[in-house]
């Protein structure tokens, strides 16, 4: 019963093993069946993973199910898993695949087979996601949201992963399964579109000067 003892020590939320562990150390412990490491990974990543699943699927039940499926199969197959340099990126890419698969299964009945091959996530930004210093300014948030939602699907996803999920471009590429240069290209194009959005710039400069 040795591994369980680790869990007993710290009942807190983000607890478990010590926070000083690197991703690969934590992953190694988890692969050995350390429940505390597994718990740490879960608590660290669950909120953002849930947001990601929700942003792709737009369905709370699907998001819940897919994340549960993913973590339970992670635990059962932990011995066969590879080395993870960035746990977050690994989980995001696994989750992305699973959500898209689930959505395909759900929509298979409704959509023509041909369409399935071009199936890409379509993330929609909401005003609640946007952070503006002035707390209650729903109007400004809406402007930012509008600007972001006008981007192409791919551009939105790159922006979402790089800025909302806060992972570097290199990992964005891994999660989306495209190459690094394409990620940069999408991001460049997206930022360029946004730089020419006068409404966005006005809202943002007001935000800044009202500090």
């Amino acid at each position, binding site marked *: 019963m040795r591994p369980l003892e680790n869990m007993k020590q710290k009942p807190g939320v983000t607890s478990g093993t010590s926070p000083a562990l690197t991703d690969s150390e934590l992953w190694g412990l988890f692969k050995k*069946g350390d429940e505390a490491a597994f718990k740490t990974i879960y608590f660290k990543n669950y909120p953002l993973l849930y947001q990601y699943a929700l942003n792709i699927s737009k369905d709370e039940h699907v998001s819940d199910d897919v994340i*549960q499926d993913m973590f339970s199969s992670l635990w059962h197959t932990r011995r066969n898993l590879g080395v993870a340099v960035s746990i977050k990126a690994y989980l995001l890419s696994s989750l992305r695949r699973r959500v898209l698969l689930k959505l395909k299964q759900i929509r298979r009945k409704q959509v023509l087979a041909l369409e399935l091959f071009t199936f890409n996530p379509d993330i929609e930004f909401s005003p609640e996601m946007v952070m503006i210093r002035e707390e209650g300014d729903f109007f400004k948030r809406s402007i*930012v949201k509008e600007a972001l939602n006008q981007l192409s699907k791919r551009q939105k996803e790159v922006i979402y992963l790089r800025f909302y999920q806060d992972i570097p471009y290199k990992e964005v590429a891994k999660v989306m399964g495209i190459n690094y240069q394409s990620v940069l290209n999408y991001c460049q194009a997206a930022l360029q579109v946004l730089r020419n959005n006068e409404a966005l710039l006005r809202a*943002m400069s007001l935000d800044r000067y009202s500090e």
Partner: protein
Amino acid sequence: MFEKMKKIDRKLASESFINFVYRSNSEDVEKWQKWIKENPEYEEVIERATLVVNSLRFNTENNNVDTTSRHWRKLQDRIRKETYTNSSRPSSIRRPIYGLVAVLAGVLVSVVIWFQLWHNPTITFETDIAQKAMLKLPDGSEVTLNRNSSIRFHKSWDDDSVRQVWLEGEAHFKVNPEKMTDGKYRRFEVHTEELLIDVIGTVFSVNTTDNSYVVLESGRVDIRKKGEREVYTLKPGQSVKINTSGDLVMSETNAQPHISWIDGKILLNDNSLSEIIQFVEGSYGLTIQCDDETLLKRKLSGQIRLDNIDDLLHVLEKALDLVIVRDQDTVKILEIKKHRIHVQNQTTHVF
């Protein structure tokens, strides 16, 4: 000119520019401040780009801890169930490469069969932290292996004069008596690190985890500490324990409470709350707090199912007249009246 703009676009989408806007890397901040001074003609585009990158700050704090914990508990329950129901079948069977695995397994099996013609290999069976297993020994006797235990025995007992198993952890045995051609019973031996248990045909439990103990349900067993000559003979209902100074101590089970985990139940036989707490903590990885000495001495007999921790706590609460509050992995046990109001104020799960 066009080429130059292209280059600027790339620069403004770089990690280094993002670091500069977010002030997250002093090296990048200095680098960009210097660049802006040297290239005043880009002032406006830098201004715009800064505003844009600033608009990409998102609010990720809206997730509450309660939801995460609730889902974590659901996940734990699910994994526990899956592990229990799948204990006989390896998880890799469900992976897409199972065809390949099956072929490899087939090859392995044939190698093993071939190998068996020459050898009588040892089989080791192990359970992990959330796993129990029932297995049949070569003579048809049954073993229930508890969590984190392992048992080792010869694949075939046809040529062995004594049936032998080696045990680590905890197990429950149902041994069939077996007569040999000369009319004598064939012996059955359980070897543990400290004990040698000699049996003919009987039902008994062996635990080697904390303090080794053997509990006999029916029949008769002889027990000897390894390296010593004295033999203890157990009658049904009796148990033997190794005490802290390393000696074997025999006692009546009725006087000595025993917690069993067979069939997914705790069998309580006049056990005190403190003993139950110790068991539950070990099995579920919970921390259970109870400061009240008199509560710890309350006793309980009967059976409680083990598969759902919340049900188990609920039964304890009702049977022992307690208030049990669970907050994730911490469980508090309180007396019923004094803390009623205090408990109701908490947002945690109150039974």
